[in-house]
């Protein structure tokens, strides 16, 4: 029997950026908040002295353990989905701060084109440009409306950067100047400029200087230590929830954080959520936490699965194209981040130094900044050269045609160890009728509940956009003067590797309850006191990393929840029925 606890104003599931922001804002506003996190508690001292490539990058120390729970994956309806069994293929976060602790910190806003993608595409190219089955639509919020929330997140996170010369209007500067540029990044930028592009230093969640955010949290200057992506920062220099929103929530005295608390159901009655059911992962004891408002901020997979397991909303059915939960699944997989690698015989770069968000970027081929009339895809991608700081296991690059083992491999991999630079195209991914999430009929978690099943197929759009990007990256690497240039190869099909947590959708936002699950406050159309926050709300995947958009929407959701509590209920936006069903 679940033990029933005392009711609170808001219960938040998940402690990453999404859950952290909502908890901080509502506890600052005086509401009683309980935050539930399935993973263990952790503090900054857990990260001191852990610069160990094998343990963190190769053995996935900070990644969710899949012992009791994973997803299943397939390409087509009619295939049997099989479980993604290894942590290496499933990089979701756990423990306090979630995946938002081991992110890299590369920061991009999405573009005005994204938020009105359907209207803008039709306006410029006509309806025929959008292929049948591509379920793009406007988001129900414009860039201008979301802009202040982007700005707010950037202030909280202390983003370091300079404006993208081709970027949309900004209401303010980044709170910190851009990161220092290494010689490799300078070479990239100079070469891109030479061929007429508009390079800039990418913005980062690594601090270019010591910074105190508006909530009074202090972050330290980044040391370029290079153990960044897949690691917690031991210097307090990476903007993550433990350095920002979690202490902010804590110090209000209104937020209680419970770790080792795995939420398994949203409890509801008469169309309203009444709380959540969770299990203490150490004792097995079940608890019921009642609340006036329930917030799911448990990342895309758990957000979708919890709704499905709790029987809330209608699960998307690809045959009828009806139902909104699980609809519009997208992500950046093996067709994205392809480009060209240059090998330099006479130059050596200090590529063992770096930071998660250190790099140069080019936006000339992003979104609709270039003419697509004669191209066989819509949207685009951002070009990047990133200097993460390669440790020794990772850094084994050899030109194509070199054996991958044996004496020649050894010699060449040692020679090219610090003479290899890669430029990639971070491509946008559109939603399709045949890509979605539902529950698996065969595989179960440790409690006997069905696993989430992903059906995801690469399309011609994905391949065409990648092919285009590879060519553009090659032009830059050529201009950089590489002696040997290897182009990445296009994959034939999705490889079921879920790396980098760039997978979204399933509880997507919009104006029309027939095609969207939440409104632009991330309030569920079907259940007004349930807010589903995070990447699950994004209707398509733009060209770049998702976290700033997740952060901005989390601030928007927090505002909505406060409004909901103050004005005692109701839907915060009016549903609109759009004439075009997408």
């Amino acid at each position, binding site marked *: 029997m679940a033990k029933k606890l005392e009711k609170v104003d808001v219960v938040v599931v998940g402690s990453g950026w999404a859950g952290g922001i909502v908890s901080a804002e509502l506890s600052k506003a005086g509401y009683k908040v309980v935050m539930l996190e399935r993973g263990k508690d952790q503090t900054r001292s857990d990260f001191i002295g852990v610069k160990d490539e094998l343990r963190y990058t190769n053995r996935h120390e900070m990644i969710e353990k899949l012992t009791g729970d994973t997803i299943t994956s397939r390409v087509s309806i009619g295939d049997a989905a*099989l479980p993604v069994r290894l942590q290496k293929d499933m990089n979701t976060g756990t423990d306090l701060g979630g995946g938002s602790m081991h992110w890299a910190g590369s920061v991009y806003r999405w573009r005005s084109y994204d938020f009105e993608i359907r209207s803008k595409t039709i306006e410029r190219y006509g309806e025929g440009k959008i292929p049948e089955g591509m379920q793009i639509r406007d988001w129900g919020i414009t860039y201008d409306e979301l802009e202040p929330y982007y700005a707010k997140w950037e202030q909280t996170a202390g983003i370091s950067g300079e404006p993208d010369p081709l970027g949309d209007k900004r209401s303010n500067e980044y709170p910190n100047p851009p990161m220092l540029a290494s010689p490799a990044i300078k070479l990239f930028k100079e070469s891109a400029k030479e061929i007429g592009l508009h390079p800039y230093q990418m913005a980062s969640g690594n601090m270019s200087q010591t910074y105190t955010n508006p909530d009074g949290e202090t972050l*330290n200057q980044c040391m370029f230590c290079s153990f960044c992506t897949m690691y917690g920062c031991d210097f307090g220099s990476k903007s993550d929830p433990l350095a920002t929103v979690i202490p902010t929530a804590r110090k209000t005295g209104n937020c209680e954080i419970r770790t080792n608390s795995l939420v398994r159901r949203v409890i509801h009655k008469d169309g309203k959520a009444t709380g959540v059911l969770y299990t203490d992962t150490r004792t097995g004891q079940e608890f019921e936490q009642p609340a006036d408002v329930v917030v799911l901020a448990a990342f895309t997979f758990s957000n979708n699965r919890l709704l499905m397991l709790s029987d809330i909303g209608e699960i998307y059915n690809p045959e009828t194209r009806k139902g909104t939960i699980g609809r519009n699944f997208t992500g950046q997989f093996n067709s994205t981040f392809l480009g060209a690698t240059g090998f330099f015989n006479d130059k050596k770069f200090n590529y063992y130094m770096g930071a998660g968000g250190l790099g140069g970027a080019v936006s000339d081929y992003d979104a609709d900044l270039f003419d697509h009339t004669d191209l066989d895809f819509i949207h685009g991608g951002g070009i990047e050269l990133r200097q993460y700081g390669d440790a020794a296991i990772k850094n084994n690059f050899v030109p194509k045609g070199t054996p991958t083992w044996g004496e020649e491999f050894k010699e060449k991999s040692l020679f090219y160890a610090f003479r290899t630079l890669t430029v990639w195209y971070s491509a946008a991914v559109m939603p399709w009728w045949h890509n979605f999430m539902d529950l698996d009929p065969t595989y179960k978690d440790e409690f006997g509940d069905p696993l989430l099943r992903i059906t995801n197929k690469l399309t011609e759009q994905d391949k065409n956009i990648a092919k285009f990007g590879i060519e553009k990256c090659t032009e830059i690497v050529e201009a950089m003067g590489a002696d040997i240039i290897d182009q990445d190869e296009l994959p034939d099909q999705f490889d079921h590797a879920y790396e980098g947590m760039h997978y979204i959708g399933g509880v997507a936002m919009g104006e029309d309850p027939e095609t969207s699950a939440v409104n632009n406050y991330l309030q569920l159309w079907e259940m007004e006191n349930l807010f589903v926050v995070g990447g699950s709300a994004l209707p398509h995947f733009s060209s770049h990393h998702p976290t700033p958009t997740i952060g901005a929407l989390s601030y928007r959701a927090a505002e909505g929840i406060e409004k909901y509590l103050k004005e005692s209920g109701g839907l915060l936006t009016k549903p609109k029925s759009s004439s075009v069903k997408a």
Partner: protein
Amino acid sequence: MTNNKNPNQDTQDLSRRKFLKSGGLVAGGLLGGSLFGGLLTNQFQKGTKEEATPQASKQVTFDARTFFSRNEDFALLSAATERIYPENKNGMGAIELGVPYFIDRQCASNWGRNANDYMHGPFPSIVKTDVYQEEKRQNNEVITSSSVVKIPAGTANYQTKMTRGTFFLEGINAMEQTAQDKFDDRFVNLEPEQQDEILQMFEKGEVKFSGVDSSDFFKLLRKTTIEGVYADPVYGGNRNMEAWRMKEYPGPIMSFLDKIEEEEFIVMEPSSLRNYQGL
């Protein structure tokens, strides 16, 4: 070595101060000093030349197998890793670097036991992981309890019931068998070229065993060998950081703030996790 036993306290305090300056921590106006306190003290009290003490050679004395119970298996594994990363003019090969012991320990670890992976059934019979084309896919049909279903194209990577440790044992067995079948001798007695030939057969997926594809075993063997060569020496490979020295990789260093803009390639004497943690 504990901190108070350190005879060179003064010099090290100096180097710490020097670091603070050159590392830009002071210039950056460091506020969270307490966060750094322990760490700075550690890295600098040990000094950077700690590795001169022949720590690694001490470890050699105690290396022993904790996973592979049969000497023959371990000998074959050692020979195979040496072909993947041979000794040459650049320096040590896999054996001298301790890679076989690295793999032995990894097999005995949570990783080798797949303790953090989803290992619940049903397990379908394994299919090649890189067969993506639609046509080929149509043929890959398996029978599950109720109906005939298609195995997904490029199926999620690991679909065997075997743990990695077992996979190693079965793979080594299959390599020995292949040596007998092809050359009528034990793998360890073959010429290097013959050993390479067998490795290539595995790489190409030409040998079938235990319901898996031999190319998957080869990938695992190759990847784990490379990990053993280049992981921190604490795991038993990369002995005395010799592989890092070959690669001119410095190991974990606290800060490159003062060096990130430098044009010239900087070669540093490597420093290990032990030095970094300063225990």
